[in-house]
C-alpha cells in the first residue's frame, strides 16, 4: 500500500474538503435562522462535519508517517466520546437541553485547550504570533471548559450554592492577571519548553472559569452559556490559525460572532448589560428582602374552582415558566387548552423571552406538545392583550411576571421587562410552593386582590383541572 500521506496533491484535496465544509456550515446556520428551513439547516451542517472529519484522517499536517497507535487512539477516542454524547443527547429529556448544551460546549472548549496544550508543550518551534494565538485560544478554551461544566452542574442541580463575595471576585481578578502575565511570558520567551510555567498557566485558566461562573445565579445561566458558546467558537478559531486549518478558522469565527450577537440579544431581553450578568451576581443572596404583604393575603383555591373560572372565561392567557418544564406539563396543558377551545374560549400562550432557562425554552417545549405557532405571543403582543384577558394562568413562571420589576425599589430584577399579568381580570398562579423564583425575590403578584393560588405540581394540577372540567 502506498503512503497516501505522501501524495503531493493531498494538501489541495484536504483544503477543498474544508472549503466545502465551511460552505455547508454557513448555509446550514443560515437555514437554521428561519423557522421554515431550520430543520434542513442542521442536516447541511451535519454533512459539513462529516466531510471534514473523514478527510481529516489523511490531513498531511499530521506529518508523512503517522504511527498506527495514533490512529487507533484517534478512533477509540472518537467512538467513546462521540458515542457517549450521542447516547446522552438522545436520552435526555427536552427539559434538560440547556445543561446538555452547556456540557457539550464545555467539551468543545476543552478540546481547543487540549490542542493548545499539544502545540505549546510540543517540541515544535512556533513563531511568536502563532504562540500568541495558541495561548489566547488556550485561555479562552480552558475558561469556557471549566465555566461550562460549572454551568452544567448548576442547572443539573449538582451545585446548589451560589458562592458570592467581594473577596472571591478580587482573588479571581488576581488569578486572571496572573494567567495573562504567564501567557505573555510564554510568548515573549518565544519557546514553549517551560513545563512548570505552562502547567500553572493551564491550571490557573481553569480556576478562572470556575470562579467566574460560581457566583452567577441560575436565572442568568442562559446568557452565560451563550457567552461560553461564543468563547469556545473563538478559541476554536484561534487554534485554527495555529494549525493552519481554514475550516476551524471560519467555523469558529462565525460561531464566535453569531454567539456574541445571541448573547447580546439575550442580555437585552433581560434588560441587563452583560457586565452586570458576569460581575454583579444575581439571584444569589440579595433577594431575601420581603416585598410581599402590602396587599391582602394569599388566596388559595382548589382545582374545581380553577376549572370553573377557566371554563366560563372568554379569553385565557397561559404564561408558562420553568415550573412547566420541570413538571413536564406541556402535553397536559395542550390537552386542557384544546378542551377550552371546544368551549369557545380563546386561549393564547404568552412567552416571555427569558421564561425557563433559555430564550425560546418554552417555545421548544410547546412545540414538542404540538401547540401551533399562532397560539404563541411574545411579550409586546401579550402586554397589549392582557387587559382584555379575563383569566391569566401563570404556570410555574415567577420572576417574569413579578410587578416589582416595574417599581422604583431596589430589587435584583428592577427594570427587567415583564409580562404585566396583574392587569388581567383574574390571575391564577399554579405553583408547587411559595419559594421565590431564581432571582430570589418574593413575588407581589401572589398577594394581589385579583390573584388566586393553586398549589401543586404543574402536571398533576393541570390534569386535575382537566378532569374537573370534564366532570362539569
Amino acid at each position: 500500500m502506498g503512503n497516501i500521506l505522501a501524495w503531493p496533491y493531498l494538501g489541495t484535496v484536504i483544503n477543498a474538503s474544508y472549503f466545502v465544509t465551511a460552505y455547508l456550515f454557513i448555509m446550514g446556520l443560515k437555514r437554521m435562522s428561519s423557522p421554515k428551513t431550520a430543520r434542513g439547516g442542521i442536516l447541511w451542517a451535519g454533512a459539513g462535519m462529516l466531510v471534514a472529519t473523514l478527510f481529516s484522517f489523511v490531513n498531511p499536517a499530521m506529518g508523512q508517517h503517522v504511527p498506527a497507535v495514533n490512529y487507533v487512539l484517534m478512533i477509540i477516542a472518537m467512538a467513546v466520546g462521540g458515542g457517549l454524547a450521542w447516547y446522552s443527547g438522545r436520552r435526555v429529556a427536552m427539559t434538560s437541553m440547556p445543561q446538555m448544551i452547556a456540557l457539550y460546549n464545555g467539551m468543545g472548549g476543552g478540546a481547543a485547550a487540549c490542542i493548545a496544550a499539544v502545540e505549546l508543550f510540543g517540541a515544535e518551534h512556533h513563531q511568536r504570533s502563532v504562540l500568541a494565538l495558541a495561548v489566547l485560544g488556550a485561555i479562552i478554551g480552558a475558561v469556557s471548559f471549566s465555566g461550562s461544566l460549572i454551568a452544567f452542574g448548576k442547572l443539573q442541580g449538582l451545585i446548589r450554592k451560589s458562592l458570592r463575595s467581594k473577596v472571591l471576585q478580587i482573588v479571581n481578578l488576581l488569578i486572571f492577571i496572573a494567567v495573562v502575565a504567564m501567557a505573555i511570558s510564554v510568548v515573549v520567551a518565544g519557546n514553549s519548553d517551560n513545563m512548570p510555567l505552562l502547567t500553572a498557566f493551564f491550571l490557573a485558566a481553569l480556576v478562572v472559569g470556575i470562579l467566574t461562573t460560581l457566583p452567577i445565579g441560575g436565572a442568568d445561566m442562559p446568557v452565560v452559556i451563550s457567552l461560553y458558546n461564543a468563547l469556545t467558537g473563538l478559541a476554536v478559531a484561534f487554534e485554527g490559525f495555529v494549525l493552519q486549518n481554514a475550516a476551524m478558522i471560519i467555523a469558529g469565527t462565525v460561531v464566535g460572532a453569531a454567539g456574541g450577537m445571541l448573547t447580546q440579544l439575550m442580555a437585552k431581553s433581560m434588560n441587563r448589560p452583560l457586565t452586570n450578568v458576569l460581575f454583579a451576581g444575581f439571584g444569589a443572596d440579595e433577594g431575601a428582602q420581603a416585598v410581599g404583604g402590602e396587599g391582602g393575603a394569599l388566596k388559595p383555591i382548589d382545582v374545581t374552582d380553577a376549572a370553573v373560572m377557566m371554563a366560563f372565561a372568554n379569553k385565557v392567557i397561559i404564561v408558562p415558566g420553568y415550573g412547566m418544564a420541570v413538571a413536564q406539563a406541556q402535553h397536559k396543558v395542550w390537552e386542557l387548552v384544546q378542551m377550552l377551545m371546544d368551549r369557545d374560549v380563546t386561549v393564547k400562550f404568552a412567552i416571555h423571552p427569558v421564561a425557563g432557562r433559555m430564550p425560546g425554552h418554552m417555545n421548544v417545549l410547546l412545540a414538542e406538545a404540538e401547540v401551533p405557532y399562532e397560539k404563541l405571543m411574545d411579550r409586546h403582543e401579550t402586554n397589549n392583550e392582557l387587559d382584555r384577558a379575563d383569566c391569566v394562568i401563570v404556570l410555574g413562571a415567577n420572576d417574569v411576571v413579578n410587578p416589582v420589576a416595574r417599581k422604583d425599589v431596589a430589587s435584583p430584577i428592577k427594570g427587567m421587562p415583564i409580562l404585566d399579568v396583574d392587569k388581567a381580570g383574574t390571575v391564577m398562579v399554579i405553583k408547587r410552593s411559595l419559594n421565590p423564583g431564581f432571582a430570589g425575590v418574593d413575588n407581589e403578584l401572589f398577594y394581589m386582590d385579583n390573584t388566586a393560588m393553586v398549589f401543586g405540581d404543574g402536571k398533576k394540577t393541570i390534569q386535575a383541572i382537566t378532569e374537573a372540567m370534564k366532570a362539569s
Partner: protein
Amino acid sequence: MIEGFTALYIFMLAAFTGYEIIARVPSILHTPLMSGSNFIHGIVLVGAMVALGQAHSPFGLAVGFIGVLLAAGNAAGGYVVTERMLEMFKSSKED
C-alpha cells in the same frame, strides 16, 4: 499557508457572516441556534485529530486523546440535541 493579513481578512469576513446570519432571528429560534452553533464549533474535532496525529510523546498522545474525545462529544452531542429540537419545529409546522 494562511498567514498575516490573509488570516485577518478571513477572520473579519467570517465575523461579519456570523453577525449577519443572527441579526434578524425570531426569538423562538434562539435556543436551536445556540445549539446549532454549539454543534458547528465541534469542528474543533478536526484540529484535535491533527494534534493527536502529530503527537510523538506519551504526553502528546494522552492530551491529544482527551482532545479528540471531548471534541467528538461536542460534535455528536451538539448534533443530536439540535436535531431533536428542530424535529419538533417541523412537526408543529406541518399541522
